[in-house]
């Protein structure tokens, strides 16, 4: 017994001594190990970049070989930033779903890369009166299941579009659709409506087969008439389409046998997938990755000004922005170049009016960055370095924008207090009437009316008109623009509208972002329109 105790004591003593020395030793060891780890991590990452090069060279050689042997890659993989919402073209209103819809379905008109509405299914059209449109579709165009497209399907699709909660706004001006003969429909609009042909190019007015929609399939295996047929949709992962060999327009058939849309929500992961060759093209490249793509000899960067404009809005009902001098001062005080650089790494153009230049009738305003002029205007309005305002924003990009605005305003003696909101709350708050100055954006549909009416008409206060700007002159110009069927006259009307709005200055337009697409440099047929990647059926190696 005795010996046992002693043994245990000895043991304990040893243990304690170990502990005491151990404290110091432990610290040293931990330090050493941290350094070793840093070294290991360092070499690992070094390895990464070193290994990358031979890998790429190998890929390069392989590609060169394949080029020599002229092997055609049959499948094009396109990276999308989000999953599609629906296969039903009248059940979604987002750009990812549109890309798939445009391949699966035809519309009566489509947009070309210059953003003009050109005929798709329509053979010829005429206007018996200002409110009536006769549309004759091409004969012999077949859906993927072999049935012919007739005026029945056109009438059905347009009426269905008007009923759908997601896209009902597109054909809101259409009063009725009547069948004239097997291939002709007559559409009557509620008012004289100049943007009509543009509305027909919207994905929500895709022509869907009546017999399919009325079947029990419920969009599991959609039938369209486009260059590609539906194969598979794995929710959250991918959408697979296969080439439709009997597409009606032989000159415009799909090039690749298969197009697979891969959903890659994270921007950096998308770029890496392009670098590793897992995808052939990225539909929306992050602006911070554009340099990386440009420098890589295996990849190509494509850029095109979009229709998305960023702006600083001012509530014209609320002091100090009820004073037009203050609003004009803001237009002189804010350095748009700096904001473009900080927000988008320069991937865009400075906005000089309230829409992108891609939209018909856009006309540049006169404002330039001139803090002195801004100070003068503020002084004239009765504010001399003693103005404090609220500046609202939501999300990281708009926060950065707001910070530049804040710094700019500081220079002209205006203190801006930035307040951040969650997106849903922001949309509600900027409509509450309490908004003062806020950073926001707008993506235009092709027709100018679809942007200018919601933004600057009296009727959309508490909806999209967040600046609450009302002007009788603008109301009149909006009304005139909607009904003017002569293109040159219509353009002149919108020119005047832009000039008026810029003079009244409810907005400080900031920049129009570029649509960025990154692709394998061997990929051919890459086309962009102001809405981004377009005509995907032309993609091929």
């Amino acid at each position, binding site marked *: 017994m005795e010996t046992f105790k002693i043994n245990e004591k000895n043991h304990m003593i040893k243990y304690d001594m170990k502990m005491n020395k151990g404290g110091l030793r432990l610290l040293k*060891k931990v330090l050493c190990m941290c350094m070793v780890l840093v070294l290991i991590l360092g070499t690992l*990452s070094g390895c990464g970049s070193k290994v990358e090069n031979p890998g790429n060279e190998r890929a390069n050689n392989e590609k060169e070989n394949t080029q020599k042997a002229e092997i055609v890659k049959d499948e094009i993989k396109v990276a999308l930033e989000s999953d599609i919402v629906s296969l039903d073209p009248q059940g979604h209103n987002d750009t990812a779903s549109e890309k798939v819809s445009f391949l699966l379905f035809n519309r009566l008109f489509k947009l070309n890369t210059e953003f003009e509405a050109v005929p798709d299914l329509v053979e010829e059209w005429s206007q018996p009166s200002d409110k009536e449109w006769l549309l004759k579709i091409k004969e012999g165009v077949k859906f993927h299941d072999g049935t012919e497209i007739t005026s029945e399907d056109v009438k059905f699709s347009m009426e269905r579009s008007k009923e759908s*909660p*997601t896209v009902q*706004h597109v054909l809101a001006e259409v009063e009725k659709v009547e069948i004239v003969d097997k291939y002709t429909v007559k559409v009557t609009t509620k008012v004289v409506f100049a943007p009509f042909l543009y509305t027909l190019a919207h994905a929500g007015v895709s022509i869907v087969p009546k017999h399919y929609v009325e079947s029990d399939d419920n969009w599991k295996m959609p039938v369209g008439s486009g260059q590609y047929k539906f194969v598979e949709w794995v929710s959250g*992962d991918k959408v697979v389409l296969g080439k439709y060999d009997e597409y009606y327009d032989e000159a415009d058939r799909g090039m690749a046998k298969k197009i697979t849309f891969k959903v890659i929500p994270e921007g950096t992961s998308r770029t890496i997938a392009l670098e590793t060759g897992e995808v052939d093209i990225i539909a929306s490249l992050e602006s911070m990755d554009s340099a990386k793509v440009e420098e890589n000899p295996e990849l190509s960067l494509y850029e095109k000004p979009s229709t998305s404009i960023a702006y600083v809005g001012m509530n014209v009902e609320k002091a100090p922005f009820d004073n037009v001098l203050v609003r004009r001062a803001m237009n002189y005080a804010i350095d748009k170049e700096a904001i473009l650089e900080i927000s988008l790494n320069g991937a865009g153009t400075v906005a000089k009016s309230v829409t992108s230049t891609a939209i018909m009738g856009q006309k540049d305003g006169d404002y330039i960055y001139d803090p002195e002029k801004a100070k003068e205007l503020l002084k004239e309005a009765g504010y001399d370095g003693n103005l404090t305002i609220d500046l609202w924003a939501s999300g990281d990009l708009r926060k950065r924008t707001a910070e530049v605005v804040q710094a700019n305003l500081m220079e002209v003696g205006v203190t801006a207090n930035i307040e951040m909101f969650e997106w849903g*709350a922001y949309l*509600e708050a900027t409509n509450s009437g309490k908004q003062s100055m806020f950073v926001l954006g707008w993506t235009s549909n092709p027709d100018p009316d679809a942007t200018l009416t919601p933004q600057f008409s009296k009727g959309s206060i508490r909806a999209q008109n967040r600046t609450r700007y009302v002007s009788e002159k603008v109301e009149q110009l909006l009304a005139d623009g909607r009904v003017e069927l002569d293109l040159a006259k219509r353009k002149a009307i919108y020119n005047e509208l832009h000039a008026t709005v810029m003079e009244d200055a409810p907005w400080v337009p900031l920049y129009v972002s570029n649509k960025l697409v990154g692709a394998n440099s061997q990929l051919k047929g890459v086309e962009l329109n102001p809405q981004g990647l377009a005509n995907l059926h032309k993609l091929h190696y």
Partner: protein
Amino acid sequence: MIRYVIKRLLMLIPVVVGVTFLVFFIISLTPGDVAAMIIGEGATQESIQQLRTDMGLDDPIIVQYGRYMGNLVTGDMGNSYATGKAVSAEIGSRFPNTFKLTVLSILISIGISIPIGVVSATKQYSIFDNLGMVLALIGISMPSFWLGLILIIIFALGLGWFPSGGADSFKSVILPAITLGVASTASITRTTRSSMLEVVRQDYIRTAKAKGVSNRVVIRKHALKNALIPAITVIGLEFGVLLGGAILTETVFSWPGIGRLMVESIQRKDAPMVLGCIIIFSVCFSIVNLVIDILYAYIDPRIKANYE
């Protein structure tokens, strides 16, 4: 034992009722109009109002909740506001992916953490112990988003061993599973280590050693089995954390799982989908905990005796 299991399964009912009740009301409190979000920009006030009426959004919340629960009893989780697809079908297609990822990552983390924990404890204050604990510390403090990207850069971009994302083959699950497993590895290692340390000082271990049993057998048969109970508790909790915490990992690796589905649905204010995901999470979490409780019984006869 079976009675106990049935009792525990019945306990799921109040859990689901409580969780759905909370979530339903929290979602209804968040700002933003669902109808306006569905229709999107360019909608008229009348059409928004029409949709609100059609969707029953004008009814009092309690009525909407009652309606939802009524349908839930018949197994109908409703249709997604955003896509119009049946919530149960959507979850059905996504859940197996999350489950696969979670199970693999918990296996990876058990495979790493239990041996490290045991070695750390048996060779306390040795270089192994210190190294193990430093690794555990790094693991627990490394953001999964960052680790995921680093793994992609090294193993997908640099070495080309694994795909950088997607769910096309078995290879695609490896990197996300490692990313996800690393954080839980840390806490399981630490728990295993501390409970092993406690057990190896017990009398029966000394007795076993005194009987001349080899060190390896003492550790494996006598010590580890007893030390595993706290470790298993942590594993159960970590499983739940992994199920829900996979969101970032799923995003980095474009993994079509339920975590991403839930976040996307929250952003779209897609209440039926959010509720569906949360119900699935809470049911899974409860079932995992039940399995853990049953595992206790197999590991520890004393606990088994309590059930009978």
